[in-house]
């Protein structure tokens, strides 16, 4: 084999590189999608930490509340534990509000609004950290006393001389205004310094800061795209025009979702009527209510899909990539609901076999059956549900059945996404 000298190959490599360069194209949409995905993942990670913090906070609140109640006759410990309870409660409320806000954060809102929401969360967190820092001198002794009394029964407050406690209180109160002034001065002097920013990032929660940084990257990238005339015109072209078959598929999906809403609404009305007629008859009411809830869950899913699908289409505010994300999100939750329905199918079928004969022929076949048959049916149903649950874990994507349970919405959603992705690639 000739030509294996690296220096000789270098020249041929560079020639090939130039030919390869001519075949390449940069896909901006995938970069945007990747930035969006990173932001979402970062916020999901932060949310998990928040839940952990909420759990810990709830446990601490419970313990402190119990301590306060137990020692309500002891003024010294009451005065020690009440401010601690207040602080822990404030921290818990801050975490809870942050968790709730992030859970409700709508990525389809204007980016500036999302940014303002995130900034407000960061400010609230920093404010909480500031108050913890300001009150730590005042509250460290009460915290230690409560901990020792609560865990080990040691009465620290009575063991210390009153002057020690008084000095600590006075120092603690004095530190608060001093601390406020110091923080204000440091903020003014160091506001641009990277070390100060890093400290603030750590104080507001490193996972939240990481998520916010990802978001800012995404925001900056979107701004860069908006400024660049070439990419802007390319994106506008892609967004404004959809091929006619894709539009037709979207309309078909919207009609299918609407049809499912009406079908389930009708079923709910009929089942509601059945349940009212059979009030006081548990052998009919229980299966009737079960079927009612199943139909209600399906209808709610269809209504939510209908609302989300309003954002989908050519010329919408959302760009194509965000619309694809929405479609995927719709499919994801539809699949989850269908999987739960599959697992509950044996139970639902049993309920239907009790309700339908009563509706059609006024026959209560379960009431006429023996106790052994009831037990046998219960066991078979339980095992079937368990088996299906196992099946769903092993093979979550049993497409045909999921499609049927979703009223065909999943199949149309999948087809629409494929057409949109093909449309994106062809641009």
């Amino acid at each position, binding site marked *: *084999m*000739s*030509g*294996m*000298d*690296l220096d*000789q*190959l*270098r020249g*041929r*490599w*560079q020639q*090939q*590189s130039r*030919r*390869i*360069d001519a*075949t*390449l*194209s*940069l*896909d*901006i949409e*995938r*970069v945007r*999608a*990747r*930035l969006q*995905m*990173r932001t*979402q*993942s970062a916020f*999901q990670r932060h949310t998990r930490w928040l839940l952990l913090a909420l759990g810990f906070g709830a446990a601490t609140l419970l313990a402190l509340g119990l301590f306060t109640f137990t020692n309500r006759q002891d003024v010294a410990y009451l005065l020690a534990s009440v401010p601690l309870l207040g602080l822990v409660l404030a921290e818990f409320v801050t975490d809870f509000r942050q968790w709730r806000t992030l859970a409700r954060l709508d990525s389809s809102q204007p980016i500036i609004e999302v940014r303002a929401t995130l900034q407000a969360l960061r400010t609230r967190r920093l404010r909480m950290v500031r108050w913890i820092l300001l009150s730590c001198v005042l509250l460290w002794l009460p915290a230690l006393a409560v901990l020792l009394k609560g865990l080990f029964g040691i009465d620290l407050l009575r063991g210390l001389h009153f002057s020690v406690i008084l000095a600590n209180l006075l120092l603690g109160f004095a530190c608060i205004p001093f601390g406020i002034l110091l923080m204000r001065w440091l903020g003014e002097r160091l506001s641009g310094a990277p070390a100060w920013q890093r400290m603030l990032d750590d104080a507001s929660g490193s996972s939240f800061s990481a998520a916010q940084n990802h978001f800012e*990257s995404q925001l*900056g*990238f979107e701004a*860069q*795209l908006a*400024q*660049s005339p*070439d*990419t802007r015109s390319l994106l506008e072209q892609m967004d404004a025009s959809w091929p006619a078959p894709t539009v037709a598929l979207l309309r078909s999906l919207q009609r299918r979702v609407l049809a499912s809403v009406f079908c389930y609404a009708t079923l709910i009305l009929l089942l509601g009527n059945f349940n009212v007629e059979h009030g006081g008859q548990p052998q009919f009411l229980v299966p009737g209510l079960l079927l009612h809830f199943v139909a209600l869950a399906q209808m709610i899913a269809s209504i939510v899909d209908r609302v989300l699908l309003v954002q989908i289409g050519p010329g919408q505010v959302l760009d194509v990539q965000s619309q*694809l*994300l929405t479609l*995927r*999100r719709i499919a*994801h939750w539809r699949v989850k609901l269908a999987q739960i329905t599959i697992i509950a199918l044996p139970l639902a079928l049993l309920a239907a076999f009790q309700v339908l004969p009563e509706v059609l022929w006024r026959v209560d076949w379960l009431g006429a059956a023996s106790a052994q048959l009831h037990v046998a049916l219960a066991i078979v149903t339980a095992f079937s549900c368990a088996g299906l649950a196992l099946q769903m874990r092993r093979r979550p994507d049993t497409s045909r059945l999921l499609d049927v349970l979703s009223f065909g919405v999943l199949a149309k959603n999948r087809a629409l996404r494929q057409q949109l*992705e*093909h449309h*994106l*690639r062809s641009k």
Partner: protein
Amino acid sequence: MRDQVDFIKLIDAHKGILYKVANAYCARREERGDLVQDIIVELWRAYPRYDGTRAAFSTWMYRIALNVAISAHRDAGRRVSEALSLDLGDMDFAATDRELASGDDGLHALQQLMASLDDISRALILLYLEGYEQDEIAELTGLSASNVSTRLHRIKQRLHEQAQNGKSS
């Protein structure tokens, strides 16, 4: 202070670097696509700190691209899939792959050799093939000039041995 230059245009002008680095570190096409996007995202995040007076954009881009590729290659076993991962289909590397496949035996052997090298050596040989001199490679990778020289010499030897084995078989 550097001028405000359109990031997208710069990346587009040097997009060959993205794909060459991705090709050097990923065998599968879908992994290449993912790595390219990861590199672009990291370039974007690092862009505010880019100083055009200290290094050419291509050099800066190579440094970041190789760092991302090496990290991704090392973390490949530990990577956790993203929630609700986007299935956007494969990027169109077909044309690129056809061009690579149409290369001569020497280039194919070189590709095979690169695939068998460790992460750092792949970076060295890629930069060398792209026309960087040893001192530039040393600065880019953070290795000493003598280390770069030794590693490149070893790679040349391996290539020569591979050629000899090919001739004798």
